């Protein structure tokens, strides 16, 4: 059974294609707003609060939400909720506290990237933080983008029955065209459009499904008859629940999420953006959980799913429930989720190469005319995209190995150091370096050797060790 069979319907196919090509038109419309490198990488610090709110949430949620969380709810039942509570709560505080302070300070310093901020904040003339941070970003986020491309291309290849290489090239070209045209502004507006597309997949879909099942009590009864543990959110072990909640510790360290706060037109508007962002995060995350639960109630046996894979429950149900128009939109929703993460991350990679490595490290901050900086940024976006696509095609094992550590590694390395940089005046360069390096190494070591025997999610020890490293490193070094 091909889970994308219904795409052969011309209406479903046309709507699906429309969702893929719409971002290119957005790129064209935002082209005239690209006048400087600041416009290209952070929307000239002039973005609307709704756009920032939806973009910050969409960029953080990849296909992991649509396919992964629904699959988790299918397998584990109501306990899957813990996997979404952590990051929603973390991001709510991030908007209001970390985001607002970061937005103010980055404007004061004129910083375009997170590493720009660290360097200015600590007056790091030897550029040690920038170099260390750039290495971590270049490795983890490039692998992250490549992994998104692989996931998207594999799904596209199955959906349209085309070779993976062609699907990879097509998704790469689609993303790069609008990114080159409209930079950050195109990426952020596309996140908003994709949020609208996801309303069908993660709001209308679960509500309709619930009605079809006979309502919420009927859903719980069916699940409890299958296995009472499915409706007991506390049936999971404490370690698993803590690990799920710990996913949220990764959010403040994702440069592609944090950069969104830097782009808003007024820092105080991040307070309202927090409400919109949290509302949206709650709606789509609970939507994914409900889809998994409904899937289990309707198709209790995982063996009857294609390849016995619980993560295809979203696709199977959507094919069963909907006519061609909505189905086309729902499948478009998956790619929307994948691409909204990939493009945001790609922009971070490009800004690291252009602003951090080329302009600040190689050229040592020499004055470069604004039009040249903009041109260079566009060229580097294309080159970074090609790098990610080549990695996606040639080095899939390496990518998936690196991505295992990406969310946790970035969270431990940048999340801890950013919080200390913003809120603890005593933080020093040595402390930040110790935090970044310790965080990355602990995540890798724990994931490889300790996460299975201890059943503790690596980000929890990673975050704690990185925080301790920042404190100790700062206290043993000279007061700033």
């Amino acid at each position, binding site marked *: 059974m091909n889970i994308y069979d219904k795409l052969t319907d011309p209406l479903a196919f046309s709507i699906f294609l429309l969702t893929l090509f719409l971002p290119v038109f957005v790129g064209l419309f935002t082209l005239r707003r690209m006048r400087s490198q600041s416009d290209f990488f952070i929307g000239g610090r002039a973005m609307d609060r709704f756009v920032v709110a939806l973009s910050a949430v969409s960029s953080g949620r990849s296909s992991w939400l649509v396919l992964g969380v629904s699959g988790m709810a299918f397998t584990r039942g109501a306990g899957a909720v813990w996997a979404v509570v952590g990051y929603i709560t973390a991001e709510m505080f991030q908007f209001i506290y970390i985001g607002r302070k970061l937005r103010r300070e980055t404007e004061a310093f004129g910083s375009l990237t997170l590493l720009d901020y660290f360097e200015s904040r600590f007056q790091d003339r030897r550029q040690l933080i920038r170099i260390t941070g750039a290495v971590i970003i270049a490795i983890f986020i490039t692998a992250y983008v490549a992994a998104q491309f692989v996931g998207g291309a594999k799904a596209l290849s199955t959906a349209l029955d085309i070779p993976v290489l062609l699907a990879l090239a097509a998704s790469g070209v689609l993303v790069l065209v609008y990114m080159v045209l409209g930079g950050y502004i195109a990426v952020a507006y596309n996140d908003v459009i994709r949020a609208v597309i996801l309303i069908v997949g993660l709001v209308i879909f679960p509500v309709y499904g619930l009605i079809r099942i006979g309502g*919420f009590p009927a859903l719980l009864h069916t699940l409890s008859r299958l296995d009472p543990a499915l409706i007991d959110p506390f049936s999971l072990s404490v370690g698993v629940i803590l690990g799920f909640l710990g996913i949220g510790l990764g959010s403040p360290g994702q440069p592609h999420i944090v950069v969104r706060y830097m782009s808003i037109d007024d820092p105080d508007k991040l307070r309202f953006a927090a*409400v919109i962002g*949290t509302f949206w995060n709650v709606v789509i995350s609970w939507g994914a959980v409900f889809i998994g639960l409904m899937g289990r109630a309707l198709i209790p046996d995982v063996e009857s799913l294609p390849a016995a894979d619980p993560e295809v429950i979203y696709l199977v149900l959507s094919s069963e429930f909907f006519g061609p128009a909505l189905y086309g939109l729902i499948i478009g929703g998956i790619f929307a989720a994948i691409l909204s993460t990939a493009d945001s991350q790609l922009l971070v990679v490009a800004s690291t190469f252009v602003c951090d490595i080329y302009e600040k490290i190689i050229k040592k901050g020499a004055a470069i005319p604004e039009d040249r900086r903009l041109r260079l940024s566009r060229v580097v976006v294309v080159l970074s995209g090609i790098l990610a696509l080549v990695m996606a095609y040639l080095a899939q094992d390496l990518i998936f190995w690196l991505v295992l550590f990406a969310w946790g590694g970035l969270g431990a390395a940048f999340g801890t150091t950013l919080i200390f940089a913003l809120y603890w005046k005593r933080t020093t360069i040595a402390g930040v370096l110790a935090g970044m390096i310790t965080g990355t190494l602990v995540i890798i070591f724990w994931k490889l050797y300790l996460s299975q025997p201890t059943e503790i999610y690596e980000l929890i020890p990673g975050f704690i060790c990185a925080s301790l490293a920042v404190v100790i490193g700062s206290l043993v070094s000279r007061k700033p």
Partner: protein
Amino acid sequence: MFSAFFVLLVLPLVIILVSLLLYRLSGRNRGG
């Protein structure tokens, strides 16, 4: 049954309410 009802229907509302509360409490030019 009650705990499922709580985490699936009440908890999301609680989180949204907390975000509204934070909005009120944080105030302009404070907090950040």
